[in-house]
């Protein structure tokens, strides 16, 4: 245990851990690290899942432990918290830019639940728009709300005729 460690210095180390499915984004800017708490000689890292079944969470938890171990913190505990629930609104503009540079359209603002039928029936809902990360065209359409991972939707660009991923607003 390094006695000089602070919450901030641990956060800096945790920024070395990348999302395995989005290797340009680290877990701190993704917003899933909620807190760092010192419990005697142990470092406790509180994380919150992105999606209930996201398989990357298990890998991330392991990476947190091995990364902190490598920095001399032998006793690390990862605790899962659920409230407040993770939202893409926590992503900063610079993080969204990184996604875009990586070829994934960033999420727009989360639409609050309006409750009841208005939000449940697709035809009554405006489909999310996205700018093509390849050619910048705004002439794109959502093809499916479900993509290669839980966090992505499939869009198609009518400008450069290529499919692309959009990071879903959640």
């Amino acid at each position, binding site marked *: 245990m390094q006695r000089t460690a602070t919450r901030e210095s641990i956060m800096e180390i945790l920024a070395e851990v990348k999302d395995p499915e989005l290797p340009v984004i680290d877990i701190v800017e993704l917003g899933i690290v909620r807190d760092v708490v010192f419990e005697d000689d142990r470092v406790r890292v509180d994380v919150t899942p992105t*999606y209930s079944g996201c398989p990357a969470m298990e890998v991330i938890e392991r990476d947190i432990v091995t990364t902190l171990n490598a920095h001399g913190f032998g006793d690390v505990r990862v605790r899962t918290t*659920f*409230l407040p629930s993770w939202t893409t609104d926590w992503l900063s503009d610079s993080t969204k830019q990184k996604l875009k540079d990586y070829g994934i359209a960033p999420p727009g603002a989360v639409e609050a639940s309006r409750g009841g039928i208005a939000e449940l*029936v697709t*035809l009554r809902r405006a489909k999310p728009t996205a700018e093509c990360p390849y050619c910048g065209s705004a002439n794109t359409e959502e093809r*499916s709300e479900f*993509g290669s991972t839980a966090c992505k939707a499939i869009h198609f660009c009518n400008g450069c005729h290529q499919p692309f991923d959009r990071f879903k607003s959640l």
Partner: protein
Amino acid sequence: MSDSLFEYLLRLADDRLVLGHRLSEWCGHGPILEEDIALANISLDLIGQATLMLRLAGEVEGKGRNEDVLAYFREAVDFRNVQIVELPNGDYAQTIVRQFLFDVYSYHVLEQLQQSSQLELAGIAAKGFKEVRYHVRHSSEWMLRMGDGTEESHARAQKALDDIWRFTPEMFVADAIDDEMLAAGVGSDLRAIKPKWDSVVTDVVTRATLSIPADAAMIGGGRKGRHTEYLGHMLSEMQIVARSHPGAEW
């Protein structure tokens, strides 16, 4: 209280585990690539929600059973899901109708559970609620597309609705456990949810140019461990790897 809470959590978890497994059976067999991906994603969400709920159930029970033990080493009679989720996939209309009727139910249940006095459950529900919002969008869109589509798709959607409708009343049967959980501020109010479910389902079915079938009810009892013959067969496949290699980790 903790016995009832354990039982209540199993009900929530098993609905999602069994339906999630059913949807996973479509993986690689979807009618088009986007739908194959969509059902696999929804399956992953449901199994994820079930995992979190079973983990919490195991902690509440306090006998050292984790989510894997609860998923893979219980018999059909110990499962507490409603029967609608264990029905076979059938054709795509059967899968979508089953999904739509459950999604609308789950949307309202999770919406309420976000306010549960059991804070872990409230947190799991808040996460699941965000997910079920887009599940309902997916299944309601397909209800409209199939019902108001071709003669063939309309006929199949109506047949699916007629076949599955009798399994829906079971979702709203509130027994002593539901009442105890509701009174404790833990559980959802199934009696209050029923009219909301009716209204959304009727709206979508009508817009899809389909007809709500006449009321009928099967003998339910899934919450007490009475299941259709389909569940045992499904579990034998779901559980075989874990049971053939007990203690294996991967």
